[in-house]
């Protein structure tokens, strides 16, 4: 074995670190949790994006029109042979549903609620979750190849659960196919409206999502203006207080 100089070894170590640093782990905007203020600062709309995995049927939630390895690590906490940690491959994930909320607080709450429900399903109430699933003859989650349809169905159920539990009114769910939303009885009609995502070539999915974001942002700004005007007319006490007093200009 040829001897290596110390400089060579150092260089090699340096290069490996560089390679690791350069590794793409997903959309940078999707990295990390976004509070309501963060969303506003990043010019994002109060939305939650649900991506389905075409290979395994699992669903990934995101606050942004993109996803990151960190989200996968966070949302698939206890992988096993039936519920493997999905790959980040961007040809595997397709948008399943875009949910527009009435406010940023709602969007953040819904995202947190969905992630929490996923964790509960995978950890605390594992047995309970399994009871409601369709099983095959061997008593495992029904599958075909590697595809387990139950995961996306659970995600839809969780969305309905969150909206109803927190009473997130004026919500619009835009589905890739209305087929997925299931029977009407699962949804609170006074809280949610359903719509279809525009038909898009999957190649331009990101463009479509960005347009939806812009649209939602615009709609939200309009609504905010409207509600502010009404509150000013009503002369609520909040408007009489100058809350900017003492703040640096």
């Amino acid at each position: 074995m040829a001897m290596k100089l110390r400089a060579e070894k150092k260089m090699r170590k340096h290069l490996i670190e560089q390679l690791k640093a350069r590794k793409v782990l997903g959309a940078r905007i999707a990295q990390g949790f976004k509070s309501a203020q963060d969303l506003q600062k990043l010019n994002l709309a109060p939305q939650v994006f649900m991506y389905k995995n075409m290979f395994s049927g699992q669903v990934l939630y995101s606050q942004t029109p993109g996803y990151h390895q960190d989200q996968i690590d966070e949302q698939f906490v206890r992988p096993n042979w039936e519920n493997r940690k999905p790959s980040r491959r961007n040809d595997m994930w397709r948008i399943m549903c875009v949910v527009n909320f009435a406010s940023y607080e709602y969007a953040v709450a819904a995202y947190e609620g969905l992630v929490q429900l996923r964790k509960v399903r995978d950890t605390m109430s594992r047995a309970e979750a399994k009871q409601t699933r369709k099983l095959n003859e061997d008593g495992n989650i029904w599958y075909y190849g590697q595809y387990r349809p139950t995961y996306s169905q659970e995600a839809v159920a969780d969305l309905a659960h969150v909206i109803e539990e927190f009473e997130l009114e004026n919500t619009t769910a835009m589905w890739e196919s209305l087929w997925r939303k299931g029977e009407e009885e699962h949804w609170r009609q006074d809280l949610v409206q359903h719509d279809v995502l525009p038909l898009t070539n999957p190649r331009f999915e990101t463009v479509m999502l960005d347009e939806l974001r812009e649209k939602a942002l615009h709609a939200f700004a309009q609504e905010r203006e409207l509600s502010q005007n009404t509150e000013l007319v009503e002369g609520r006490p909040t408007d009489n207080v100058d809350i900017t007093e003492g703040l640096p200009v």
Partner: protein
Amino acid sequence: MISARRAILVSARTLQRTKPLRFADPKKIRLREPIVPTHKNFDVSPDHPLWAFFRDGNKTETVLRSKDDLSTDSRPWDMPELRLKSFDDLHRLWYLNALERNRISTEAEVAKEIYNGDVSLFTKLDDNHLMTQKRIKQTLLERQVAYERAQLSSPEEYLQLFEDKYINADESAIAEYNEKLVRLQYAIFGIEPDLSEYNLEEDINVKFVEGLSYVAKLKLGRYLASNPGALELPLNGVMEELPFLVRDPEVAVEEVRAMREEGVSRKLDNIEVFAFLRNAIEAVRSEPEELAEEEN
């Protein structure tokens, strides 16, 4: 300023809410059952083209037929049957077979689950359709070979041969020869079998005139063989030849005789021929309508 005011407004609204925006205790969460997708959420157009892949179209209740409904005694089309069919018919038949095979394979896929993988019945049905398709290809191949062979021999030679056969044919075989003649005049001279299908501008050309002479020579030749001396030869150009194309030989001979007696029959100049033929065919075409009007 707006964002700060907005924050207060929102927090005021949040205070009004009775429900908190988080799960109180994760341990007390009652998970919901998975929501199964359903087709009731959208309408499928009743004339969606994909319905063609189901046996009863949009009325289809089940993909799988019962075993009694399968036509187990069916058979593929035979070569002699297929040889009688035109290209258009074969083309249609090919796609009907393809469609049926598609339906059968769908059924077989479902049957695999239900009959424990025993789909021999469907395989047998499918084989029939496959055999039909192979035979259609074989028929077309035969036609192509015949066509290519015909290209090699000169048409004059063949026409002479056919003329001899036609004139000397038995009375029993003449019907078959007449049919053959119709095909021949279409194949070599482009003369349509049916008068109504003529495009007067395009179909009346030099080839047509040649064919007309040939057909008249054949029919008259055969007529004269049984009735020698019925008409003086030769025929005087297209004016006397046309009746043999559009009428029976007996009627045509009568017509030619009448024309000769009246003295209207003459040999047309080349420049007059097409115009004459167009007018004459147009007149013959409108004959049945005039007859019908007279009857009324």
